[in-house]
């Protein structure tokens, strides 16, 4: 089985985390999902430092980044990713509850690859995630339950 790059999910809200994982599971993506809970952790993971200093090298296939994060917010994380040569090639999808135009404009200015306002309806959300997967994750014929969230505590 080919080694797929993981999806990095950056999400502080546990409910959103669970629902996003459920949506990923239903969207038939074969990638592993690495989850981190704030902007600082996201950067530590990407730059292989802090508690991720021993992780195997390699970049995620795509970063699903929540806009509102404690400590370092989503826009800051995006700025850091896009201003480092090592990470700027990684596609970043801003996942947000916000329908504010200014957030969208700022994200695009910082070089976001996609911007998804999470729809209220769950089915719509699953569809959106699935569309993203087609774009940025490599599709396999996944066995059921192929998503292996690696919840770090």
């Amino acid at each position, binding site marked *: 089985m080919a080694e797929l790059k993981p999806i990095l999910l950056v999400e502080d809200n546990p409910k959103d985390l669970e629902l996003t994982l459920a949506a990923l599971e239903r969207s038939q993506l074969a990638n592993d999902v690495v989850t981190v809970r704030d902007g600082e952790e996201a950067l530590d993971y990407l730059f292989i430092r802090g508690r991720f200093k021993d992780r195997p090298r390699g970049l995620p296939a795509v970063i699903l980044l929540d806009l509102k994060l404690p400590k370092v917010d989503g826009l800051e994380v995006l700025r850091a990713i896009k201003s480092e040569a090592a990470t700027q090639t990684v596609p970043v999808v801003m996942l947000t*509850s916000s329908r504010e135009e200014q957030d969208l404009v700022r994200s695009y200015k910082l070089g976001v690859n996609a911007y998804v306002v*999470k729809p209220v309806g769950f089915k719509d959300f699953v569809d959106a995630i699935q569309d993203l997967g087609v774009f940025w994750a490599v599709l396999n014929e996944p066995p059921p339950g192929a998503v292996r969230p690696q919840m770090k505590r």
Partner: protein
Amino acid sequence: MKDSVRTITETPPELSGCDSEPIRTPGSIQGHGVLLVVDAATAVIRRVSANAVEHPSGGADRLIGSSLSSVLGKVLADKVMAVPPGESPMFIETTRPRSSNGAYHVLAHRMGSILLVELEETGSGEPAAFDVIYPVLQSLVSKLLAAKNMPEACAVAAGQVRELTGFDRVLVYQFDPDWNGIVVAEDRNDRLPSYLGQRFPASDIPAQARDLYRVNPVRLIPDASYTPVPLRPADSAHEPLDLSYASLRSVSPLHAEYMRNMGTAASMSVSIVVAEKLWGLIACHNAQPRRVPFHVRTACVFLGQVLSQQVAAHSHAEQYTSRMALKSYQSRLLAEMAGESEFLRGLTADKASLLNLTGSTGAAIVSAQQCILIGQTPGEAKVRALSDWLESRPPAEVFWTHQLSAAFPESAEYADLASGVLAISVSKLHARYLIWFRPELIRTLSWAGDPNKNAPDIHTGRIHPRHSFDVWKQIVRNTSEPWTDAQIEAATELRNHIVGIVLRKAEEVAELAGELEQSNKELEAFSYSVSHDLRAPFRHIVGYAELLRQDEANGLSATGKRYIETIIESAQYAGTLVDNLLTFSQMGRAALSMSAIDLNLLFQEGWREQRSDIGERHIAFAVAPLPTVQADLMMLRLVVQNLLSNAVKYTSTTPQAKVDVGYVSEPSEHVIFVRDNGVGFDMKYVGKLFGVFQRLHRMEEFEGTGIGLANVRRIISRHGGRTWAEGEPGKGAVIYFTLPKNEPQDKETHG
């Protein structure tokens, strides 16, 4: 900013010489006395009047070079030589030379290095000396001081001077700011006609004469038909002799002629000087020649000085009283203004006070938006032209003139109404003026009657008071009564108050704008947090309920499943509501980005998006050829979607549903409408149709948040268009919207 409008005096040619006449150095004296010019250091006689020859001293020329004591005797000559420096002639004594029958008053004054000694003949029956005059003078002064006001003081003084001098007529004559004169008081017998109220042009008393009258308080011409007596040697051989202060100074032949034409053989005038300015004259006339001895003249000068003091005091009192009156008008106006939202309107509430404040007959309040006319004024177009002219001048808070046409020639056509203008500028940024008008003086006078009507018609000679009045009338054409300092001050103060009010209002507006900005910021923060925080819980409810329905379906009863459906539906609805609200607020906040949009394509695309809602139904859809418009694509798409989804929704119960899009081209706008044959609505609710959260149907019949048409209206109005609707229950509805044909401008400001 005083507008110095110069009077252009049309002096008749025969009088044009007046201004240049050497009245201080006539080179001659009147014949009722003798002049000796003495070296102040040596007491040697340098010059004499030619009539000295008739005097005991022998031939005039023989006197030149002799000592003063050889003429007056040592005692008197010593007294004369002891005269201190000073320009007023001093009375030395009355002398009766042995060689002559007559008695002479000896007067002397210094002029630099010379002494002018005048020997003035005494008249018969004149008061013998000062001590006769003093007690009389004392009671006169106390009466004069008791006068209650300026006209009364002038009338009293005229009577007293006549009592002292015995002249047939005594006038008190006052100058206006342009040096025209008016007779304000008179005391006379019936030998000479009345001149009360008569006006004289400035040219009657030329400038150099006025200057002389200011420094030398009294002039006497005992006999206007006198023959001037030349000086020996003549002026040509010497420096011209300055006779400014000499009692015997010879007068201008023109003046003598003027007197004769007035029917007066003798005249005297005493200056009234207020604040070092010639205020007027006490002018005395007699039908027959008349002498006035030195001490009587001196008493008259003294009365003139008392009158000057009285005039000053009364004019201060009058100014004070009138200022108090103006203050009360002002406070009334301010009270009216304070109570008005459009405060300038307040000025019109008390029209009498507005006009009284400056003693005007008309006023105008002029701004870009309005031109309010009060009282007697030129027409609106003329007033606007005047305010444009004011605007074109260098900026000034206050402008005034009593001869508008001299500065602004085109105003001559309404000079009768507005020769005088006093204007205050009440805004630095905009042309906003309050203008007062005053009529032409001639017009004012003609109400009072021509003072000349009763004057005798004596057509002798070239210059005559009768002509004076005609000349004066010519001069004061297009001239109003001048504005007083108090009136100008009152206007200036009013302006400052108005500007104060304007500033305060501006501050209030600024404060409101600040508050508005603050609340806008709060609103933004609110909608941002709604956007983030309110959507999330709805999403979670829907998400978890979905998971429950999918993953735990087996453990749920039918009722449980129905409960979950309801939870999902309600949360979904709440989320949609929040989304629609946010859209609505964004419609107000987001900037428009204009582009050319083909409405045909937009409606076709919009219709395709309705497919899922149409489902299995068949709806006949038709679109008339539509124009390409300038609009914000994202927003206009929302309009089209809203209108089409409404049409689809409200035809859901109609058997043969029809939706069509129509177009009417109006000169200035495109009119587009969407018509359906659905459930329609009752026109009595048409006002509610475009309101936020207004629903005309029950929830279970047609779902929706009631915000779609509110969005439509908001978007279209931001494009400068209009929205309206027609409907009939059971028959269908038509929703219209328009877009301007010119480039639409964003009609809403947004922070």
